[in-house]
């Protein structure tokens, strides 16, 4: 019995849709198994992890709240990935965005919110863009691999933030903890849903998703980015410059990540801390893939990823599971997706392997 993969003559449309759903389902099943192995009642654990967190109004608010930075980062990353620009440093760009936006808030505590907040968002975007410009420049000027450079910059950004909240920006009334002063109300994003922590950042994220769709599907520039990712030689034939593709791919990712960073510190966190993100920048990479690099898919995948975060937090309290369980699920989800994605381009073939006698008889008969 031989199992082999046979290339399809045309990629399967059905599987392109079904693959992320299958991967999500497989992750849930794996979760079920994991809970059993850990000695918890799987049904209870499943409930605590996946259902309870979104069973209340507050829970829904949290779900949407956590999905905002994921949507923002993932959309920016996806535009780059489609063009074969592999920005892995969203976490760093998010951090720098938070530093810039948060820094502005600390610097202008008296400024009217209607003026301050847009400035903070702009500052965050600018910071993210600047941080992403470094790997873009290194790639276009020195041909340095952007995966590694953008990643190194994550570590540098996090260290920079740690320094800032420990020394120059430390809250003088903060009992010597490494943290900045709390932001004033004028620097906080207005709430959207009473009784929850959901703020207008969510609307901004949705708007960015819509803009991303418009860009990719309906503009010549977006079309050219896609060509650059699918066939670089055809891109140069059509007059699409690689350099411009790299810059756009990296800077868009930096901008959205920077905005996401401001969204966090001007939202649920309310100040600058040594750690302002539970790995949103990395989770967004997974969201981008699971969402098929498509804005609508990214929106849905953000919700799923957000649920995984909430579940992890709930499991810490309700099931006494470590917080690392979230990261485990994230990794598993991507693995399953990569596996199910195979069937878009290939199908399984089961072939009976005849014994040598049968084969000889077959050929003699001709």
């Amino acid at each position: 019995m031989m199992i082999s993969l046979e290339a399809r003559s045309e990629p399967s449309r059905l599987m392109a849709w079904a693959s992320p759903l299958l991967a999500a389902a497989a992750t849930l099943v794996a979760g079920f198994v994991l809970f059993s192995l850990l000695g918890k009642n799987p049904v209870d654990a499943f409930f605590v992890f996946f259902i309870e967190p979104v069973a209340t109004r507050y829970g829904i608010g949290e779900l949407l709240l956590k999905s905002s930075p994921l949507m923002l980062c993932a959309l920016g990353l996806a535009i780059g990935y489609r063009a074969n620009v592999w920005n892995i440093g969203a976490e760093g760009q998010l951090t720098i965005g938070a530093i810039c936006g948060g820094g502005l808030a600390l610097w202008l505590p008296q400024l009217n919110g209607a003026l301050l907040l847009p400035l903070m968002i702009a500052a965050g975007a600018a910071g993210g863009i600047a941080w992403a410009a470094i790997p873009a420049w290194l790639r276009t000027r020195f041909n340095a691999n952007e995966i590694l450079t953008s990643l190194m910059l994550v570590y540098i950004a996090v260290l920079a933030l740690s320094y800032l909240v420990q020394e120059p920006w430390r809250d003088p009334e903060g009992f010597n903890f490494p943290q900045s002063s709390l932001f004033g109300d004028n620097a906080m994003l207005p709430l959207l849903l009473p009784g929850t922590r959901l703020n207008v950042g969510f609307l901004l994220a949705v708007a960015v998703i819509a803009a991303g769709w418009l860009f990719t599907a309906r503009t010549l520039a977006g079309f050219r980015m896609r060509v650059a990712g699918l066939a670089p030689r055809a891109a140069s034939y059509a007059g699409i410059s690689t350099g411009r593709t790299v810059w756009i791919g990296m800077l868009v990712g930096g901008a959205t990540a920077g905005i996401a960073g401001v969204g966090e510190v001007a939202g649920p966190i309310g100040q600058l801390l040594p750690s302002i993100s539970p790995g949103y920048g990395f989770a967004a990479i997974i969201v981008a893939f699971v969402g098929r690099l498509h804005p609508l898919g990214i929106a849905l995948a953000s919700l799923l990823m957000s649920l995984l975060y909430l579940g992890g937090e709930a499991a810490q309290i309700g099931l006494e599971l470590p917080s690392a369980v979230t990261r485990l699920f994230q990794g598993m989800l991507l693995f399953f997706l990569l596996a199910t994605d195979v069937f878009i381009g290939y199908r399984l073939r089961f072939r009976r392997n005849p014994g040598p006698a049968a084969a000889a008889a077959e050929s003699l008969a001709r």
Partner: protein
Amino acid sequence: MIDHAITLFALTLAAGTVLVFAALGELVTEKAGVLNLGVEGMMLVGAVGAFIVADDTGHNWLGVLAGTLAGGAVSLIFAVLTLSLMANQVAAGLALSLFGIGLSAFVGLTHVGHVVDPIAPLAVPVLSGLPVVGRLLFGHSPFVYLSLVLFALVQWFLFGTRAGLILRAIGESPQSAHAIGHKVIAVRYAAVAFGGACAGLSGAYMALAYAPMWTEGMTAGRGWIALALVVFANWKPSRVLAGAYLFGAVTLVQFQAQAMGVAVPSQFLAMLPYVATIVVLALISRDATAIRLNAPASLGRPFHADT
């Protein structure tokens, strides 16, 4: 003065050895044409595996073996995805890193804070006692010597054996190798597993000798630096060695500066290895010709035997 210099030298070797294991393993993998970005994850899995086994059984070298096998085992997930299921190598490697970081944190929780008797540097009778030469040549951790042996093995294998020639050919052009009749997929599986085992060994070294302890994410990006190192070395084992020790020296600057009371905040000193990596990547990647002649031409591209 000389004593101090020898101490620095020894520390440089010790720090660089972490990278030597991981980078040599990844070099073999890449020479076969496979780009495995999961080094960070595999190192952590190796570290936690080694620490747990050593802690629970009391036998350190058993822990090292466990760590090595764990790294190799988890690399096979990546191998199946990319070699048999044609998945994108970049995405699968990232997934492996994220998964490895999460899995190791999860599994290692119960052992955080535990203390293990570390594997001590060598103490060769008579030889280690010799003035100057003794500490210079014979006083290092067994892992340092192991890493040099690994270097010799890899160098000999790749450039002195038929099997190594086949592996290099597969990395250069898997289609041609397949047309001639070589088993591309099988060789790549072996290369990936070897890379994973080396990464696991590197993690085991950190957990049981270098650090020695277990904490979540303790490799702090060394897996990524190892990847950069392979590029920096232009896929030559001897340059991997040189580059690894160079980075070892850079990490040392951090501690030296603190010891000397330099008035630079610790975070900036901690940034040095990452900044150095970026600079090195920029400098080395400029020369497109050198890269074309040394980088495996098929690196990162999936191979499907079309019949």
